[in-house]
């Protein structure tokens, strides 16, 4: 006797029709082995179908969104623009800020010590102090 075993799963899935369905029903009424297999396949099918439906992890779709995926390039571009603006602002501030009061080192030395007189290389000098960042 030929056992239509592959038809058993198709039957459980509602994929068996017409003549094949009639044949299987007839066979099952006479074959204990195939009836047992039907029960086993039903158990396995139910077991797999009992696996719970998992929710999509939060953020997965937005991470895969082509628009979002393209963002890092834009971010990099804007970061570059922002950095350029800051540098330009600092340079501009340095240019337009009025010179700070000149500091006379000799006078300073006379106040805090006599190093400039002991060290020839450390002669009187005038420096201009221009704060880089204005408040």
């Amino acid at each position: 006797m030929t056992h239509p075993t592959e038809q058993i799963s198709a039957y459980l899935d509602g994929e068996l029709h017409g003549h094949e369905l009639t044949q299987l029903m007839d066979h099952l009424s006479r074959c204990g082995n195939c009836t047992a297999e039907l029960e086993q396949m039903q158990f396995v099918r139910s077991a797999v179908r009992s696996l719970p439906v998992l929710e999509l992890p939060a953020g997965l779709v937005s991470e895969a969104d082509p628009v979002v995926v393209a963002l890092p390039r834009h971010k990099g571009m804007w970061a570059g623009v922002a950095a350029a603006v800051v540098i330009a602002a600092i340079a501009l501030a340095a240019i337009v800020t009025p010179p700070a009061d000149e500091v006379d080192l000799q006078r300073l030395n006379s106040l805090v010590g006599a190093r400039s007189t002991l060290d020839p290389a450390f002669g009187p000098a005038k420096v201009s102090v221009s704060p880089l960042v204005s408040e």
Partner: protein
Amino acid sequence: MESIPLTWEEVARVHGRKIYNFAYRLTGNPDDAHDLVQEVLLRVHRGLSNYQPGSFEGWLWRITRNAFLDDVRRQKRRPTAPLPDEVDRWAHGATESADAEYARISLGDDIQKALLELPIDFREAVILCDVVGLSYEEIAKAVAVPIGTVRSRIHRGRKILKELLT
């Protein structure tokens, strides 16, 4: 008549969870499933403008399985089983008793491990049928094999699962 999502956002919204479940059951771990879904959505984005009206499900699942098979070929790695506490933790309410929860997770873990023991062809057929819920005809289109082959793969896959689970 099958309604066809026209935009990437609609595909992601309508099918994202199904793709994730397919990917998770096929790979057996959330990280690979995560990567696979992202790859599939990327391929959908690239291919959507050229999509010809027909079987959208077949087109989508063909993309999904091809992405998985490409990944398997590229990494030449065998999918691994998930850690028990990683399984199914999202989808259950707090009303389940602890014993029932443990039994369910334990059985779910056993089923997941058994699925990973199946040859890939059988595994994808069983998952597309029992997890995703596709008809044999839709599976045949997705996998590009005759319906008879789908029927055979599902039945043989279930027979192996029966041996592994009993």
